[in-house]
């Protein structure tokens, strides 16, 4: 099984984990982003949403589980074909929530271009944006190195 190990800076990543944990707590019974479900049968809608929430929360828990005592000892996290799907989806969910909760003052165009002035953000928003970028980097790493395994799974 293909596997990649990534060495991270504890000093940089540790504060971002608090952001992810705060997002996880906020997601308890909510989707990261509202989804339009007007065309979904009313009877099906609640079950549909509940399953999405359940999988989303499982994915985010799996993301946070990467940063365990081994990570704090070694600074290393590992991605493989078993966890790649979950981690990719978890990163997407947390990024969507961060955009909704902390980065909503940034225009879509600026966010898409990454054209954000960090100095203009307050401390909480700056940390949220750093977390947003960190999770994008995680996604890019997984896609770059594990794409074939993800497509075959």
């Amino acid at each position, binding site marked *: 099984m293909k596997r990649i190990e990534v060495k991270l800076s504890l000093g940089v990543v540790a504060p971002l984990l608090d952001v992810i944990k705060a997002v996880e707590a906020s997601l308890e019974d909510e989707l*990261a*982003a509202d*989804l*339009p479900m*007007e*065309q*979904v049968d009313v009877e*099906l809608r609640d079950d*549909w949403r509940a399953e*999405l929430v359940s*999988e*989303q929360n499982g994915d985010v828990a799996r993301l946070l589980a990467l940063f365990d005592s081994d990570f704090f000892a070694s600074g290393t996290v590992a991605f493989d074909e078993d966890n790649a799907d979950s981690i*990719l*989806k978890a990163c*997407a*969910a947390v*990024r*969507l929530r961060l*955009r909704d909760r902390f980065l909503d003052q940034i225009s*879509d*165009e600026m*966010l*898409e*271009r*990454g054209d954000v002035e960090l100095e203009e953000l307050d401390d909480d928003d700056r940390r949220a944006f750093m977390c947003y970028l960190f999770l*994008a980097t995680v*996604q*890019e790493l997984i*896609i770059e190195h594990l*794409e074939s395994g*993800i*497509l075959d799974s």
Partner: protein
Amino acid sequence: MTINQAQTSPLPTVAAETDVALEGPWRVVVLNDPVNLMSYVVLVFRKVFGFSDATARKHMIQVHEDGRSIVWCGLREQAEHYAFVLQHWHLTAILEPNETD
């Protein structure tokens, strides 16, 4: 969608190839969002629909530039399934009746 390497790399020529049939009473439409990476959206399209890389990129670019792309059409039950799976991947997927039918 968010700029990343996928946008700065030259786009492959989209050859005339057979897409998933875009005919049927219901369609699955993916809407643009400013968060998900282009490379992520391409990956999801390839995984969910089995698109070639070129087809997945064509739909991703359409989402990015036009705000939406019809990625599948067909019977309602299958359309619901695809929309559900895309929403699992946190793409904004909606169902629409195919008014051209």
